[in-house]
Every structure is written in structure tokens, then in C-alpha cells.
């Protein structure tokens, strides 16, 4: 989707950027329930209620209620004027210091033209040091902070959330218990955690709702009307923490 290079000073590693994720969410179109006709989205003026053609639509920033600064796409694009298409690495940091909350969208970096040697060298060196490269790149007219990681000889890039885009714990109101958990409760809960310890096996975890939804839609497409499941009663809640822990460990 993007051809450029990772640059570290004079070192240039030609790369191609590929999206690393894909959505399997079942996609629906909007239909009018009474006649099944497709729904169209029409852009209308909020003042006149009349439809507006695309060439009469501009982007505006509201400086105060009712006051707009109008900007063209070219002007918005002018905000980012990179000299070159480069992922400019500024620092290398220990991988375990970057909390995953910082990672946003994931990409793979493929080898760009004439870059096999430089790519393999950078990937091997990053793997040896266990470090993550932090840098900046302009993607889709927006400068992004990115993290570069190497794994199995493949460079991966994640866009990163800025520190002020993350909510800090002290912005939340977390009620402290008047009575701290007792040693017996902590011990019982520890047993429960140990009992549920396992491996991270993402390949075994499926989106069962999407699968059920697809099964239902396929049956409907064949003209069947499958039964819909009935809602279950929610579990009863218990106030006795220790009794619930004991029962869980025994189960």
C-alpha cells in the first residue's frame, strides 16, 4: 500500500508497507424494512433540507458556534510536507518497556526494491538487541508515531497512541474496599488463577458469534427459518466471596 524506506540517519532500508490485519465482521447493507429496497445516503443542507452535490461540499473547522474556517483538501494535505517517503527512526527502546496499550494499527514491512541486504541486516540486528525502533512516518497525510519490531526476520510496524491520548488511572474513580481481602481469600484466588493457567493459543479461539450469525444467514439464504435461541436467566450473584472462591476451586 506504500513504498518508501526505513531511514536511520544515512542508512536507507527500502520497504513496502502492508496492512497486517483483516476484518471478518459480517457486513450488512441498509434496507427499507417494509419493501426491502436499498437505503441511499443523501447529503443535504441542514438549512434548506435540499440535496447538495459533492462538488459543493467543503471541510470546515468550527472556531466558535456558527463560525467556520473553510479548508480545502490540498490545504489540509499541506500540513504534512515530508521531503521523502520515509519511516524515520529516532530511538531504540527495550521492547518490554513499551506497554501494548500504545500500539494502535499493525502493519508488516516487506522488502523494497534493492533492499534485501539492508532489510536482513536491520532485522537481524534488532532481533539481537531485543529493541524496538521508535520513529515517525507520514501515512495518509498524517504524521504517525510508529514502533518497529523484528520477529522471525520480518519487520512489523505499529502506529502508536500518544501519551496524552491515553487515559491515566488517576482520572478514574476506583473505590477502595473498606476491608482488604483476607489472606484466606488471596490464597484461594491464587489457587483459582493457577488452576486456570494455560497457554496463549489464539488459533484455538474463534469468534463464535460471527460463526453463529453466518450459519443463520446461510440457512435463511436457502429459504429456511431456523429457530432463534431463547434468552437465558442471568447467574445469581453471591455476596460471600470466600464461599464462591472455594466452590470455584472445588469445581
Amino acid at each position: 500500500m506504500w513504498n518508501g524506506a526505513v531511514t536511520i540517519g544515512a542508512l536507507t532500508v527500502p520497504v513496502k508497507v502492508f496492512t497486517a490485519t483483516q476484518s471478518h465482521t459480517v457486513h450488512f447493507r441498509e434496507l427499507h424494512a417494509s419493501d426491502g429496497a436499498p437505503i441511499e445516503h443523501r447529503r443535504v443542507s441542514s438549512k434548506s433540507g435540499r440535496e447538495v452535490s459533492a462538488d459543493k461540499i467543503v471541510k470546515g473547522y468550527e472556531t466558535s458556534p456558527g463560525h467556520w474556517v473553510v479548508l480545502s483538501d490540498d490545504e489540509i494535505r499541506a500540513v504534512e510536507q515530508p521531503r521523502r517517503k520515509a519511516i524515520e527512526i529516532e530511538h531504540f527502546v527495550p521492547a518490554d518497556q513499551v506497554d501494548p496499550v500504545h500500539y494502535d494499527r499493525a502493519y508488516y514491512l516487506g522488502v523494497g526494491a534493492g533492499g534485501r541486504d539492508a532489510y536482513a541486516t536491520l532485522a537481524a540486528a534488532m532481533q539481537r538487541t531485543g529493541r524496538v525502533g521508535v520513529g515517525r512516518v507520514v501515512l495518509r497525510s498524517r504524521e504517525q508515531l510508529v514502533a518497529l519490531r523484528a520477529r522471525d526476520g520480518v519487520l512489523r510496524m505499529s502506529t502508536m497512541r500518544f501519551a496524552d491520548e491515553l487515559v491515566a488511572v488517576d482520572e478514574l474513580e476506583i473505590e477502595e474496599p473498606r476491608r482488604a481481602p483476607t489472606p484466606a481469600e488471596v490464597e484461594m484466588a491464587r489457587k483459582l488463577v493457577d488452576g486456570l493457567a494455560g497457554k496463549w493459543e489464539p488459533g484455538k479461539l474463534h469468534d463464535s458469534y460471527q460463526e453463529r450469525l453466518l450459519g443463520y444467514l446461510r440457512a435463511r439464504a436457502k429459504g429456511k427459518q431456523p429457530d432463534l435461541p431463547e434468552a437465558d436467566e442471568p447467574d445469581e450473584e453471591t455476596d460471600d466471596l470466600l464461599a464462591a472462591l472455594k466452590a470455584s476451586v472445588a469445581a
Partner: protein
Amino acid sequence: MARSLWSGSVSFGLVNVPVALYSAARDLDVHFHQLHEPTKARIEVRRVCSKENKEVDWEDIAHGWDADDGCVMVTDDELAALEPRRTRTIDIERFVALADIDPMHFDHPYFLVPAGGEGAARAYALLAKVMERSGRVAIGRFVLRTKEYLVALRVREGAIALSTMLFADEIRSPGALGAAQPDVKKDKPTKRHVDQAVALIEELSTDFDASAYEDRHRKRLEALVKRKRKGEEIEAPAEPETPEPVSDLMASLRESLKAARSGTLVG
């Protein structure tokens, strides 16, 4: 404190911890609105039936799924009936090591906050304490609106943090890179080059400090709006160049290392 997005409970064995869910990320982007150019009136999107040419209310909209031979129409009620029953609980299935999870799986971050008095606060404190001690991440599932999510719960700054996780089939394999996929066997780098690259990485090494990086894009957009307000002309930008590959890898590694040592590499 912002509005909670969901409330329910974390179910962990037979213990239920009543919680409320809050986003741990906020949108600070500069947003633009669509305007009708001559009148500066806001643009609204209206949903119109293509057959009757009349506006349609939200409750009269159904969902169409394109099958191989035609479209299947389903209603909100049918979709709601297909939702799993676990809609008020986050069911913890197992506890795993954080280091085993590829960071690519982490999607949106949230925080869980105890909701429901002393009982909830105690159960929450207990779960946070044993999770922090074990150093493990709880993997579970829950349904938010109509989507089932795989989630990871762990302790951050003393609170229980939740991340939605991508399922394995939502992450492509590096094989999707095709001809651009690196060939680990064939593209063996020389030790000399790797040593030099390691020296460069070490020269640029520092501790991670998230607050050291500011969103310059946001600042520039805000500055652009100010300039435009004063009536300044803004020129369209030139297309960026694609950097050329280096002809001598060793020479560029040495040059970069020298620049890094003298502190002139970035900026």
C-alpha cells in the same frame, strides 16, 4: 470521569466482580465537518428509500446480507436473538503469560472500575492483587453491543485494564507479503554488517518515555486553522520522493553511526 461504555461483571470461577467499562484511549484529533460551500450550512446525511424516494426512520431500517444468490433481509430483533447470553459478563477462560502474546493482537484499550459498593470493591481488589502477583494476563470473552470480543485483562498502575484482542484469523500471515516477503534462509546478512547495525542501534538506545513524543500533526492542523482564519494563502504540497536504496551498506552504516555518536542524526 467520562461515561462508562458498558457495565456487567467479570466472571472468574464462581466469583462475579461487578464492573463498569471505560475507554483508556481518547480521541484528540482535530475534526472537520462537511459544509455546503455557498451557505456554510452543515451537511446532514439522510437515509432515503431508493424505491419510494422518501426519508426512512431508523426503526424502519433492516439489514441486508448478500448471499451468492440474492439478498437476505434480517431485522434488529433477529440479530439481537442471535447474540450470546454472556452479554452481561466477561468470562475469564484462562490465565496466560503476557510475553507469549504477539502485541499485534492488542486492539482497543479500556479500564475496568468496580461498580456496586463494598462487595464489588473487595472482589476487584482481590482479582487485581492475585493477577499482579501471578504476572499473568486473563483471557476472556464478552459481548459489547452486537460483537463478541476476545479480551485480555491485566493490571496497569494498580487498576484492571482490559484490551480487546484480534482473533488469529484477523491477523494476516507474513506470507501475504508475496514477493516482498523476506527470505530468512537466502538473505543471510553478513556478521560485519549486523555488528555495525547493532552498534548503531545501541548508540540510539534510550529508555521508552511516551511523553517525549508529541502529536506534531495535531499542532500543525491547529496552526493551519489559525493561519487560515487570518486569511493567509496555503500552497498545495509537492509529492514526496521515494528514497533510493544505498549502494554501499557498510559505508552508510558507518556514516549513520558517526552521526549518531555526534548527536546529529535526528533533527
